[in-house]
């Protein structure tokens, strides 16, 4: 009695401890945290741009379903409402306010920002050239517009800067004063949220704000009742995927629970035992979360969601214990019989998942630790905690009859074995003759985003002129100022590439915020008030300007000469976002990530950039490389894991022959499952391969019980019944996952449900039970 109390007390104490750790753990969902520790600079850029780069803050909006003029009014109303909300850094719809932030910043700081501010430009000759050009401009139809800015900016710095920082040609068509699609049937808006794309709670809130503002604007705008809003962007994808996953998981887990509970209720006829059956897996999951949190300092969202799927076999442990307890037996009697088998079964699975610990992907390593800790805890809870909590005299009343179908199969082993071998041969033939490769190489098939949503995104990006950022020039520096200086040095190289037509455009952090040294140099290039006044008078000689026409210019230059230098805090929000996305601190280094658009010849661009000391990064290439590393590693881990399970079987059973008896049905089950999955030209996804490891982990338990059981006895019948019950629960849970729209859930579900059921059949057919 005392050791059992001790075990219960220890379990409760550990449960509380794990609960506390899990409650205080830091949960992360960023892609970068899933990546290898040793990620290359390029991979880090990929993760950073995907998760928190300026591009991840973008929401693309289209309004449609009304005449252009109505849509324009709606766009103005919606933009006005969103501009009042701090959740949006920047709301652009093509109207005058859209670029106001940037225009204002440029106008006020033009002498620190413009690269044409040189000593030469402010000599009498330089000024004379500028003023002559101004006379030409005043003779054109632009005169009324120019006569407002020329007195302050005769050298045209602001106009020059606007064309660099906010090129007008890049924007969409304008109708009725707002951006529209070329035909005018959509009004277009480009929003930047304050929250990055990975902050799904904030993104969900922001999407709600857009919807609410649109509904209010529609109610206020006459004739807009039929108007609709379409929205896309990284945040939209993230939120929708989470919604679908949540919906699928909720719906399917309710159905799976109903299925499993009905089966177990029928077998046990005891609500208390039914609930006790949850203790191993629940304790296992909690301990696993705590272990990952302690081991890694944080728990990744994927580890949490996926880990529970991996330790699904922990449900079976309780089933084996409860179902194999015969009438009149105590749980302790049962355990003394089945514990060695159960322990070996759990250990083989632990060995299978242990390979993951050595993965270069932090996410895989977390999943490895999660499943190891989860399964060990679940087995220990089954061994030490469940027996004292079980009702006295309990036995699974309804399980007796369950062995019958399997018993029948085992009695007809000879024809069944022939059929199984025929199925294996057919599967082998099908796999060998499979056409066009077994592996699904198309990454989009793994994406949970529906095709229609991807098409909408592509259409809006095209119409708004915001292409998916693919190419970047990347380099590192020891400090922010050095990084800006190198960015300035790279500017002529990129300008050269642009002039050669090798690229259509680029952005650099130093265009938005020049280095302190450059700002000081520009201040030094500005003459003092007296000198400038004298030179200006000289420059005006022979030109029809009034003597006092440029008094505001003299004042602005004098102010700029002594103005405090600009820093990151001086930037307006829209530019701060762009700047922060291009210049990022990474440990002790500063990384510059400059987006390049429409690269004509990537190889040539790469060479020119390399010569200038910058890396050329193609995100599509990087993500493809990363995905293929990920796929290769997942396959390796599944194969190594399966081999580890087999090796442990040989050691545990102390006989290669017995091990082969356990392993052969598993190999058959995996082969036939693979053949079924690729039937009709289908391809295997990375998730299905992970499913194979689960088949081996779960199915090896079945085969171990088949191998240990002595045919004909009461214990044999109960063992068979427990295997069947465990498998039916597994098929119910994973089979329902196959109905999900999320590729990862669907693929694992269909693979594990099929494979474990086949393991059950093959295990039964090749068990020794047939010998009477």
């Amino acid at each position: 009695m005392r050791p059992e109390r001790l075990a219960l007390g220890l379990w409760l104490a550990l449960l509380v401890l794990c609960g506390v750790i899990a409650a205080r753990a830091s949960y992360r969902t960023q892609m970068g945290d899933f990546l290898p520790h040793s990620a290359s600079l390029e991979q880090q850029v990929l993760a950073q741009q995907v998760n928190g780069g300026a591009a991840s803050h973008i929401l693309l909006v289209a309004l449609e379903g009304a005449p252009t003029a109505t849509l324009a009014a709606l766009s103005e109303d919606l933009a006005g409402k969103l501009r009042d909300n701090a959740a949006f850094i920047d709301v652009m719809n093509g109207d005058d306010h859209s670029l106001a932030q940037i225009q204002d910043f440029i106008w006020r700081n033009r002498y620190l920002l413009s690269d044409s501010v040189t000593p030469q430009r402010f000599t009498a000759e330089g000024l004379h050239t500028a003023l002559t050009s101004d006379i030409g401009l005043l003779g054109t139809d632009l005169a009324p517009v120019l006569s407002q800015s020329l007195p302050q900016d005769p050298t045209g710095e602001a106009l020059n800067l606007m064309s660099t920082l906010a090129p007008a040609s890049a924007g969409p068509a304008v109708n009725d004063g707002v951006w529209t699609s070329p035909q005018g049937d959509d009004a277009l808006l480009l929003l930047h949220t304050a929250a990055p794309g990975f902050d799904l709670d904030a993104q969900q809130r922001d999407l709600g704000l857009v919807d609410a503002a649109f509904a209010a604007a529609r109610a206020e705008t006459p004739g807009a009742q039929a108007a609709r809003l379409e929205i896309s962007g990284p945040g939209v994808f993230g939120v929708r995927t989470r919604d679908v996953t949540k919906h699928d998981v909720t719906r399917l887990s309710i159905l799976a629970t109903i299925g499993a509970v009905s089966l177990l209720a029928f077998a046990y006829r005891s609500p208390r035992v039914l609930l006790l059956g949850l203790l191993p897996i629940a304790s296992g999951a909690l301990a696993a979360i705590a272990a990952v949190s302690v081991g890694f300092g944080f728990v990744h969202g994927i580890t949490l969601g996926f880990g529970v799927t991996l330790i699904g076999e922990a449900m079976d442990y309780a089933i084996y214990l409860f179902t194999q307890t015969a009438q009149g037996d105590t749980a302790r009697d049962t355990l003394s019989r089945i514990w060695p088998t159960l322990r070996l079964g759990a250990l083989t699975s632990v060995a299978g998942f242990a390979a993951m610990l050595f993965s270069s992907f932090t996410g895989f390593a977390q999943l490895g630790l999660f499943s190891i800790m989860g399964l060990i805890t679940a087995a220990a809870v089954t061994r030490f905690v469940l027996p004292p909590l079980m009702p006295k005299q309990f036995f699974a009343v309804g399980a007796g009859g369950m062995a019958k179908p399997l018993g029948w199969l085992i009695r007809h082993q000879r024809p069944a074995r022939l059929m199984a071998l025929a199925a294996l041969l057919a599967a082998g033939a099908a796999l060998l003759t499979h056409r066009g490769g077994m592996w699904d190489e198309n990454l989009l098939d793994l994406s949970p985003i529906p095709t229609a949503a991807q098409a909408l995104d592509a259409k809006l990006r095209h119409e708004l002129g915001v292409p998916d950022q693919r190419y970047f020039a990347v380099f590192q520096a020891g400090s922010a100022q050095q990084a800006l200086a190198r960015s300035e040095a790279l500017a002529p190289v990129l300008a050269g590439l642009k002039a050669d037509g090798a690229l259509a455009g680029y952005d650099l952090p130093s265009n938005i915020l020049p280095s302190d040294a450059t700002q000081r140099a520009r201040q030094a290039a500005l003459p003092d008030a007296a000198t400038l006044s004298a030179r200006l008078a000289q420059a005006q000689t022979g030109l029809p300007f009034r003597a006092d026409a440029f008094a505001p210019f003299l004042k602005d230059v004098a102010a700029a000469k002594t103005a405090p230098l600009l820093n990151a805090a001086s930037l307006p929000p829209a530019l701060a976002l762009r700047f922060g996305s291009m210049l990022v601190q990474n440990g002790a280094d500063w990384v510059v990530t400059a987006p390049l658009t429409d690269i004509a010849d990537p190889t040539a661009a790469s060479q020119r950039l390399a010569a200038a000391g910058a890396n050329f990064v193609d995100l599509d290439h990087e993500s493809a490389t990363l995905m293929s590393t990920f796929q290769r590693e997942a396959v390796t881990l599944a194969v190594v894991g399966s081999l580890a399970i087999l090796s442990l079987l040989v050691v545990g059973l102390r006989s290669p022959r017995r091990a082969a008896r356990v392993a052969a049905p598993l190999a058959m089950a995996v082969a036939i499952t693979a053949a079924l999955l690729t039937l009709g030209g289908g391809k295997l996804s990375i998730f299905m391969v992970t499913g194979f490891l689960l088949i081996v982990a779960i199915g090896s338990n079945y085969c171990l019980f088949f191998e240990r059981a002595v045919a004909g006895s009461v214990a044999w019948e109960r063992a068979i019944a427990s295997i069947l019950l465990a498998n039916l629960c597994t098929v119910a849970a994973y089979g329902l996952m196959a109905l999900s729209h999320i590729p990862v859930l669907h693929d694992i579900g269909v693979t594990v449900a099929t494979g474990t059921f086949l393991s059950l059949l093959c295990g039964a057919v090749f068990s020794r039970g047939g010998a009477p």
Partner: protein
Amino acid sequence: MRRALLAALLLLAPATQAQTMWSLDVLMIQMAQVRAASASFTEQRTSPLLNAPLTTQGTLRYTAPAYMRKTTQGPAPQDFILDHDRITMSGGPDGKTHVFHASDAPQIGGLVEGIRAVLAGDEATLTRLYTVQLGGDAANWQLQLTPLDPKVAKLVRAITIAGSGARITGIDTASPDGSDSHMRIAETVSDAP
């Protein structure tokens, strides 16, 4: 005989009416008949920044309903083309070609759109953008356009277009800050149907 006289009176009637009832409608119908026209111009611009007006010369070309081209020969050569909503400016002092939409720059768009609407006889556009006042008679008319859009009004106080029949003889623009333009248009060759 009486029938012939009646027929002659009926034929004369519209012409008589056109002469007696001079109105914006009639001017617009007249202007709409012109499919293409070209002319030379002399333009004088004053500016609060300048102590003497700038004089430029060049040619104007128009093709109904929405193509206008202003080629300035001197002193600085420049080309300004309006093709529907698209404005192309080239050969200016910076030597670059600028392309933008008239609606992107309402200040400039509002100015050229008024002249285009008069040339095309597009009364709907004209009255949507301006308060229109017609003075004079068919042989010597003046059309005063006052911008309705406050953004345009900040830059252009009034545009006065003078003409004779279906021919435009002068365009005067006045700005609130004193940047004014006086354009005299001569030798119009219009291709009326």
